[in-house]
């Protein structure tokens, strides 16, 4: 019988990845993500896997590209500045339709920024991880348990849709310990008939490439890929609705800031304010369906993020002017307090009236 253990978020993602069948990890140290790589360096040799500390983040993501092309379940992890360096490789993987799991334990930016928690890579994760027309799937866990669960699921989704998948965490979630129940180790992994494993004169060559010099061919591939994105949008949205049934002031927050927003919602309810929380778990695809379900009662959206306002734009796109959208954020590595979020809820409540 499996039992709960106390683990750091960074370690929980690593252990869960191994249980999902990940046997290759390529990384480069950076705070506040390093425990993930350290855990892999200890555990990978014990399960017949490969841990390699690359000479740079760029090298690491290209090793991920190679291992993935050869059919392996593979992971890399970094924190904000390091993810920027990986952007080129992620674009190449998307262009090759290669699966792979990329973890970003975000810290404050831009530039070297700071090392304290942040959510300022939302746009990078959901809009422009690299150049070109492409998307990656993005999971935003909010607890150490979810870090384990979504790291595990990410490998399945990556293989299912042949797409890079990102776990977008932050320094708070990565560093904190909570009780976690680990998923069971997988013994069967999906077949990958497209992988470059050697044709043994039994089939045609498999080629993994993102270079298409004929415009027609490239356009056709891009269109096919975007048809797949539509399937992902239809089937893979995830969100948690908390106290939303009759909610008038609907907070929207993901990851670490959702925990603070949740506390503020509970406090607001104690004052008789009808507050609720939509917590997007997939950031791409954005969980638009969850928003439709609150449109009848919602009179105000209050988006809480640890950045200058990024996801708020997606909420405005969903709202399409039907419900006013407001924003509250802290940045630079500061974690907002439930009390300051509650003040915003009270102000919104006063504005919309009884």
């Amino acid at each position, binding site marked *: 019988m499996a039992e*709960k*253990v*106390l683990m750091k978020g960074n370690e929980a993602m690593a252990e869960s990845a191994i249980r999902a069948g990940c046997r290759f990890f390529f990384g480069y140290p950076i*705070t*506040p993500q390093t425990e993930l790589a350290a855990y892999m360096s200890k555990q990978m040799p014990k399960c017949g896997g490969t841990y390699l500390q690359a000479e740079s983040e760029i090298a690491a993501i290209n090793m991920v590209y190679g291992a993935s092309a050869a059919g392996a379940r593979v992971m890399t992890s970094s924190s904000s500045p390091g993810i920027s360096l990986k952007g080129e490789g992620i674009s190449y993987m998307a262009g090759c339709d290669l699966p792979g799991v990329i973890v970003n334990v975000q810290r404050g930016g831009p530039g070297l920024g700071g*090392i*304290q928690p942040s959510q300022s890579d939302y746009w990078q994760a959901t809009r422009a991880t690299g150049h070109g027309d492409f998307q990656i799937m993005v999971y935003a866990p909010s607890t150490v348990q979810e870090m384990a669960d979504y790291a595990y699921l990410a490998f399945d989704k990556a293989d299912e849709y042949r797409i890079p998948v990102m776990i977008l965490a932050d*320094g*708070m979630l990565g*560093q*904190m*310990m*909570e*009780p976690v129940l680990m998923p069971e180790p997988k013994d069967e992994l999906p077949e990958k008939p497209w992988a470059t494993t050697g044709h043994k004169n039994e089939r045609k060559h498999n080629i993994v490439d993102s270079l298409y010099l004929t415009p027609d061919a490239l356009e056709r591939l891009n269109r096919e890929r975007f048809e797949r994105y539509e399937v992902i949008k239809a089937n893979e949205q995830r969100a948690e609705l908390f106290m939303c049934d009759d909610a008038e002031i609907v907070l929207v927050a993901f990851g670490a800031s959702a*925990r*603070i927003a*949740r*506390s*503020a919602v*509970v406090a607001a309810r104690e004052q008789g304010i009808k507050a609720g929380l939509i917590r997007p778990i997939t950031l791409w695809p954005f969980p638009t369906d969850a928003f439709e379900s609150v449109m009848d009662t919602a009179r105000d959206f209050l988006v809480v993020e640890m950045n200058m306002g990024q996801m708020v734009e997606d909420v405005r796109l969903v709202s399409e002017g039907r419900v006013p959208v407001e924003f509250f954020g802290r940045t630079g590595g500061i*974690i907002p*307090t*439930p009390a300051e979020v509650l003040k915003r809820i009270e102000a919104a409540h006063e504005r919309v009236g009884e």
Partner: protein
Amino acid sequence: MARDLSLILAGFGGQGVLFAGKIIATAGLIEDREVSWLPSYGPEMRGGTANCSVTLSDDPIGSPLVTAPNALVVMNQPSMDKFDTAVVPGGVMVVDSTLVQRIPDSEDVCVCAIPATEMAEENNMKGLANVILVGKLFAETHFCEEETLFAAMEKCVPARKRHLLDANMAALKLGMQA
């Protein structure tokens, strides 16, 4: 069920405040409560002040960063100066009086000062002032069952440091009786 514990442990890097927090978090794990443990990380870990937030609750934990603690364990003066006003009325402060000279008076907060570092040295428990303070915190707040605390300590001492378990247990008991 014990009441919710919102705890900050603070001191210099190397005094073991993160380990002390881990013992308490593990006690919460054993009793199947909601638990969070959040360390400070970064430059303060490399010689400056270190602290960690621990929450034990029966409800899901929002922010793991404790800003209004109902318990504070303090092992140096800068941490005392930083956190003393944060403790909520009715809260408990457990202070190592060997290392903290200026301990504020408070009507609303129960201040328990014990010379933990001195006690550790006198009892051949050098480096275990942190554990003595956990024992004292337990005596004041009963954040878990007594046998849970001992079981938590056993879980927290890794196999390769098994020879240190007895000393840790003794330090815990010394704190509980202080």
